[in-house]
């Protein structure tokens, strides 16, 4: 049995159903009678679209653009510098693999690791806590990244009790805030949004209702299997055509109206939203998740005096000047519009953050062969 058959059994990857949905989508876009531009705000959606070659199944008049959907990509340089400074000062910094090569002002965590700094890749916050328990004589800092989904895991670990030598440097971001910023960009032509199903599992879908009303753009909560994406796009274009700025939940097997109450309780017990700079985008009001003051003891920013002056001050980087990451994250450019894409900028030598993370638009396009039009090839 092939991989496709396996998933086909689950019916989320069934080619016949996919074809039927793609045909319905083409009819819906044709009924609008002009090109339609929609945005998703999630690296996992882009992965599904790229991995399964869905763009070759989209109607030509439907443009599905990736917005700021990669938490690693939007982690700002000063945040990386804080982690680099902590590692340089002797702390053991644990973080997710993608964070290692994220460029700081002059160095990445990977550079610090290469120089002998104590930087460790972990797969979960729990693993970082275990490392802290195993090394009571060391300061262990978990450099936390991710949207509210992973922030809940961080919160749960803290609430579960952590050793005295463990702290968190939060680079957690809050998705709904970013959608607001992108919707307000001056030259945006986005008419509808796909919301990330996993984040909505936590927040619930109702949270998008004020956004849809305020922007006049419908929002559809979507899952991550190819059929989820196709069905959600079909619903989104239908709402656009009918001019209904509503929220539809096409991921009801995971997402409810009010979200995961216990998870949300944990999240807000530990974190609060604050304004934050997102790399390449802007200052995002309420875009960052910061540890609440009562958790000062586990907040690396309050626990240590972090001096980033010693690790900052980048030499001017000619390649970085030509990098389009910012515009790509604002959905104003595609990865293939960048002259560095796949040439000077590749996963092993990333220039911009979008090529660093497996959730970044450039990295995804590079991994899955870009987006050439392959509809008629070999026919």
């Amino acid at each position, binding site marked *: *049995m*092939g*991989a*496709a*058959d*396996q998933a086909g059994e689950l019916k989320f*990857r069934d*080619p016949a159903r*996919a074809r039927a949905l793609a045909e319905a989508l083409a009819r819906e876009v044709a009924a609008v009678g002009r090109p339609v531009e929609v945005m998703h705000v999630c690296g996992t959606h882009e992965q599904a679209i*790229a*991995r*399964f*070659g*869905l*763009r*070759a*199944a989209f109607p030509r008049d439907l443009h599905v653009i990736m917005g700021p959907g990669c938490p690693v990509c939007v982690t700002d340089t000063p945040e990386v510098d804080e982690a680099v400074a902590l590692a340089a000062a002797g702390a053991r910094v644990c973080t997710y693999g993608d964070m290692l090569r994220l460029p700081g002002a002059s160095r990445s965590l990977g550079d610090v690791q290469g120089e002998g700094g104590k930087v460790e890749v972990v*797969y979960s916050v729990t693993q970082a806590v275990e490392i802290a328990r195993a090394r009571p004589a060391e300061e262990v800092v978990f450099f936390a990244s991710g949207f509210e989904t992973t922030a809940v895991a961080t919160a749960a670990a803290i609430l579960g009790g952590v050793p005295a030598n463990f702290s968190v440097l939060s680079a957690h971001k809050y998705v709904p805030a970013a959608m607001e910023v992108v919707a307000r960009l001056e030259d945006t032509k986005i008419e509808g949004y796909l919301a990330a199903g996993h984040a909505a599992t936590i927040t619930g879908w109702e949270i998008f209702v004020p956004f849809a009303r305020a922007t006049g753009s419908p929002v559809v909560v979507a899952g991550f299997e*190819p059929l989820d994406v196709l069905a959600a796009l079909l619903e989104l274009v239908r709402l656009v055509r009918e001019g209904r700025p509503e929220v539809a939940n096409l991921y009801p097997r995971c997402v409810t109206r009010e979200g995961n109450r216990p998870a949300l309780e944990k999240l807000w017990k530990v974190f609060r939203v604050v304004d934050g700079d997102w790399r390449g985008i802007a200052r995002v009001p309420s875009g960052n998740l910061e540890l609440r003051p009562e958790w000062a003891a586990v907040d690396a920013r309050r626990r240590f005096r972090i001096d980033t002056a010693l690790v900052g001050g980048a030499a001017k980087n000619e390649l970085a000047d030509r990098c389009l990451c910012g515009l790509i994250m604002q959905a104003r450019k595609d990865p293939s519009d960048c002259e560095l894409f796949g040439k000077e900028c*590749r*996963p*092993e030598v990333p220039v911009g953050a979008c090529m660093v993370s*497996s959730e970044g638009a450039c990295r995804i396009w*590079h*991994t*899955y*062969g*870009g*987006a*050439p039009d*392959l*509809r008629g*090839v*070999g026919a």
Partner: protein
Amino acid sequence: MIPGPLAGPAAERIGLKHGAGGRAMRRLVEELFLPLGEPGPVDGVGLAAMDDGAALRVGDQWLIVTTDSHVVQPPFFPGGDIGRLSISGTVNDLAMMGCTEPLGLTCAVIVEEGFPRADLARIRDSMAAACAEAGVTVVTGDTKVMGKGELDGIALNTAGFGLTRRVVRDDGLRPGDRILVTGTVGDHGLAVLTRRRDLRIEGALSSDVAPLNGLVRAALAAGGDAVVAMKDPTRGGLASVLHEFAEKAKVGVLLDGPSVPVNAETAAAAEILGIDPLVVANEGKAVIGVRPEAVDRVLAALRGHPLGRRAAVVGTAIAERPGDVILDTGLGRRLLAEVEGEPLPRIC
């Protein structure tokens, strides 16, 4: 003049990706080692071809020579061990060149001080069993011991040689040719990976490591000259082989994703880890390019052999997009990018 710090390639250090079978390794070999092969053999296949082995003219036959080192971690894994791997890898490289009756193998063992003698005996037994399956013996060898910490356990090198009347290359595809795989893909890499402690994944995954000369003999007997390209999809997986086929023959390759056989356990582990089975190593599979008129014969011959029961036709060579591999996922299409390197180090 005071020499400045090293810049460019000279300052570069070797990374794990340089041994991972992908683009990085190919670039390293091309830039660093290819000069060793100049001038190449007057008649035959030398280093410059970067094929599975060399082919040197001996009378009216070809002498096929190949060598392979093995450093897999852990040395014992579900479905096999470094011993079975070292015999199979070399027998398979010979087979991919068309030599299915190896004359003999060599074996060099480098062991770390403190390595259990019982483990070494177990590895030897496993080598003996694989040799018996392939109908080959080890004809000469070498043993070295390195100090504690100077080597991680054990490294094994084998070389193989044999004669063949027809050399099968990996550049023989032309538009219209069909491409077969001899069974499920991704099993070896994922079986080894999931044995690594830090991932803590359990399951019934098993490496496919096996000597393929018998299976290839059956395919060649059925297809004859219509078998125009062969390669074993080790590091870099099926994707890497298809890229080599496409680039060397200057054709496009259209891969029909749903036709590619994948074991259920392997597919599940790959999905969890976010790794594409198409880019993961195999140690008991061959990818075979066949003229269209012979595809049914070859497929039937493969399926009639115990190691080829799940053989399938998975792709077609096309004239468009030379050098590219296009994956039809059943839901859409995209280019199948060649991986920079195997996603997991030290799997063989």
